Every structure is written in structure tokens, then in C-alpha cells.
């Protein structure tokens, strides 16, 4: 009886989730709840992360933060949103960093650390695995 219930539940999940549940968890671009942006494009996000702009399109200062190197969310974010490989990115930042023009985003930690950081910093923007999202942060974009 119990097992039948489980099967039904699984079927229901499958139906509900069909097409929307990806093979791996979605990535969420998050900001502080006070940020009045309704959404953000991947392109604008990339411009902020590459220090091409220092503000959101609403004029508010944007301070991007990174997860630590080798975190799955970071790998996913850089391949899906930034679209530069590691070496190209290192060359890109070398030119800006060592000429005092810009600094790469600070590394804050894992998903939980980034969520906590964004929840407490009004200008912050970060990315976390979708399952870490809660009401302490605002989601501007989902990368499926």
C-alpha cells in the first residue's frame, strides 16, 4: 500500500515536472530582496561579472561575488553565462587587474555562503544552485 502511494507520488512529480525539471539543478542569479529589478538578462549579468559595467540597469551599484573555484555552480555559471574558458578569463583579468582598472569578483564561498552574503548586502549579485533559493534573496534569472 505504502509503495503504491510512493509510485503515485513519483508519477505525479514526473507529470508536474515534465519539461521543467532538468537533468541537473537550475542555477539562480540572485540579488538582495530590496533590489527593485524585475529580472536580468544573461548578457547584463555577464557585463557585471566582467566589470564592463558597475551598475544594474536601474542605476543601482552592482557588486558581483563568486563561488570558490571548482564549485559546480561556478563552473556552470561560467560556461552558461560568461562563456569564456579558464585561460581566456585569466588573460582578461590579468589585463584589468595589473593595470589597476578592475578587480575580479570576490570569492565568497559555496552556495550557502553566497546566498547569505547576497541576503545581507544590498548591492550584491550572486549565483547559487536553485535548491538553495529561499525568501532571503530575490531571484532575477533562472539558468535551466
Amino acid at each position, binding site marked *: 500500500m505504502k509503495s503504491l502511494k510512493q509510485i503515485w507520488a513519483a508519477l505525479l512529480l514526473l507529470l508536474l515536472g515534465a519539461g521543467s525539471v532538468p537533468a541537473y539543478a537550475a542555477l539562480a542569479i540572485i540579488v538582495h530582496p530590496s533590489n527593485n529589478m524585475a529580472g536580468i538578462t544573461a548578457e547584463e549579468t555577464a557585463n557585471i561579472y566582467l566589470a564592463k*559595467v*558597475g551598475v544594474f540597469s536601474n542605476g543601482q551599484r552592482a557588486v558581483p561575488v563568486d563561488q570558490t573555484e571548482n564549485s559546480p555552480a561556478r563552473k556552470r555559471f561560467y560556461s552558461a553565462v560568461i562563456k569564456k574558458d579558464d*585561460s581566456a578569463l*585569466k588573460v582578461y583579468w*590579468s589585463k584589468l*587587474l*595589473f593595470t*589597476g582598472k578592475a578587480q575580479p569578483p*570576490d*570569492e565568497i564561498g559555496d552556495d550557502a555562503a553566497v546566498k547569505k552574503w547576497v541576503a545581507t548586502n544590498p548591492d550584491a549579485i550572486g549565483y547559487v544552485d536553485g535548491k538553495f533559493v529561499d525568501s532571503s534573496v530575490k531571484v532575477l534569472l533562472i539558468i535551466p
Partner: protein
Amino acid sequence: MRKRILGLLCLGLAWHALPAAAAGGLEGVSVSGFLTAGATYGDKQLLPDTKAVSQDGTIENTPGFTADSRLGLQISAKVNPDISVTGQLLAKAREDNSNVKADWAFVSYRVNDPISIRAGKIKFPTFLISDYYEVGYAYPWIRPPQEVYSSNPITTLNGVDMLARFRLGDMSLLVQPYYGVSRGAQALVPQEAVTAPTAFGGLGLPAGTIVYTDFTADALHGINLSLSSDIFTIRAGSLRTKVNAPGFGVFQDTAKFSSVGATMDWHNVVLYSEAFKREIEGLANVAFPNQKGSYATLGYRIGKWLPHFTTARIADNDNPTTGFHGIPLEQTSKTLGLRYEVSSGAALKFEAQKVTPEDGTRGLLIAPPSGTAAKDPGSNVMIYGISLDVVF
């Protein structure tokens, strides 16, 4: 006792704080650096009494591990979201006593999103990669083409610059004016001036002697305009200054540079090209004649490998034919290079360069003094190089 405990506690704290700060762990403080370890070899001994092949002595007719080697360390601290302080120390193996100098030391103030103002010691962009010339990892060659990059011995200024960045659709325009003075710069005295008899205004030293002279530059001002997209950067710049070299009686002589350049990284094609003109008035022209130069580099990325080819030239830029004036250096060179990404943040480079002095001059190479023999080293000189470039 309490004092001692307190002292120990402080020491303990410092002990723990230092590595944390060094790892960028201290909030607002970041430490980063770059390193180049390189060896070069010139295939010909050009003068009987010296192994030096290039007139700046960095390339010798003996394998040397010092010529291109250097280490840079940068510390940046955020005072608040709008103000930061940055210092960059540079140690070059080339300099005998391996002295460490501050290459950059400035305060940056962000006026608003597109505009920042920096004050202090700043490397200014005479050319495309002038301000990151020491960061080998950031460009394909071992040495940026010397036919262009050796032409301005002034690389830093004490003063201010402004970085104004504007978005133009998918592109970004950088407008960077700068103003300041240069103190403590050293310039290579050309071989003609070194070897020419004292009666003719030269130093009368043996051929192959390498002499640097101290000089200063006043009212150094210029502008750098750079338009870039994800694929390309196009830039133009000009600068003007008044130079003084007390050792040579040079006082307030006007020096002017203008340059254009472009770089592209599209699919697997990598392209760099620049051209410049230098005009120097007065007595300073004897040591720094009017020159022009250019280069073009084409590369094609194949996975982790980037083979590239460069052709470069330095030539006479219509020097005056009367009065005091120097002899322009003329040479062409062709360079075959290969860059290999060892890992993210580390690249290994190999180069073979064929240098051909032209028009009866010795180009950027060392040669016997004028009058006694042809200045032309006679034929091509091959320069081989290998380097490892790292950023951390």
C-alpha cells in the same frame, strides 16, 4: 607577564592574519602577482669584446636566464566602495642588484559608474599593451615587438589619469587622459653617442659599451582612446612631454608620440597590429632621433597551442637633415612564436626571431662604431627565447 601574553597574542594574530591577507582572505585586501622566467640566446657575437647582441644588453651570445625574468606583486585595498589603494612591486632579474621598485602606486576614486580618477604613480598607455608590458601572461609573445615598444623609455608618470568608460551598444569606449611628470627614468644611450669621439659630442667609449642616462620628463600629457568589443580592441593615443637629460645638456626639449593599434581575438584567429611615430626636437634628437615603427602579428589558436607570426619594422621618421640630429635606427624582424597554455594562469612560450638591420644602421643590435667599420652587423641575427609566464 600580561604584556608578554599580549605581545604573544598580537604576534599570533599577525601570524594568522598575514597568510589570510596574502590569500585575499582579508576583507577588502587582495594580493595578486605575475612571474616570468625566461631565457634568450643570440646566435652571433657581433663585437670581439662583448657577448651583448642587443644594444640594451638583454640579449647575449650566450644562453641567459635573466633577460626577460621578472616578478610582480600587487596589493590592492578597498578603503570604501569608491576609494581603493593599489601598489605593484616589480623585481627584474636584469638589474644587477635586483632592486625592487614600485611600478604602480596609486589611489583610485570612483566618481560615478563610468568615471574613475587615479593619482600617484601610474603606468600610462603609450601603446596597446604598455600598461601591462610586464605581465607576460597577458600577451602572446615573449617580448612585445621591440621595434615599437622600445621607442618610449618613459613608462610611468607621477600624476593623475582619468578612466572614463562608456557603453556603446555591445561595445565599450575608454577615454583616458593623463598628466604628470616622470622622474628617475633611464634611457639607453645609442651606440653612436657611446662610441663617437668626445669631440663629436659622443662619449668616446669602446664599442659595445652599454650606457644608461638618467632623465626626467615634465608636463607629460596624453590621451588614450580605446574602443573594444568581445572580439576586438581599436585604440589611438598621443602624448607630448618636455624632456631633460642633464648628462647630455638636454633641457626642455619637446618629445611627441602618436600611435594607433588594433587587436582581435575572433574564433581561433588572434591578431595584433600597431604603428607609431616619434618626433623629438632640439638636442634630445641626437640621442632620440625621429622614428616610426610598426608590427603585425597573426596567430591561430589550436586547442592549448597558439602559433603566431610577427613582422616588425622600425625606420626613419623624416629626421631633419641640418643641425644636430641623431641617426635613426632601422631594422626589420620576423618572429615565429608558439604559446602553450600549461594550465589556467600559466603559459609556456617559444620564439625564434630573425633580425635584419637596415639602411646601414645597426638597428636595435650592437655594432662597431661608425667610421671604423660598417655599422651594419652584416647579416641577420637570430634570437631564440623560451619563457614561462604565470599569474597568481
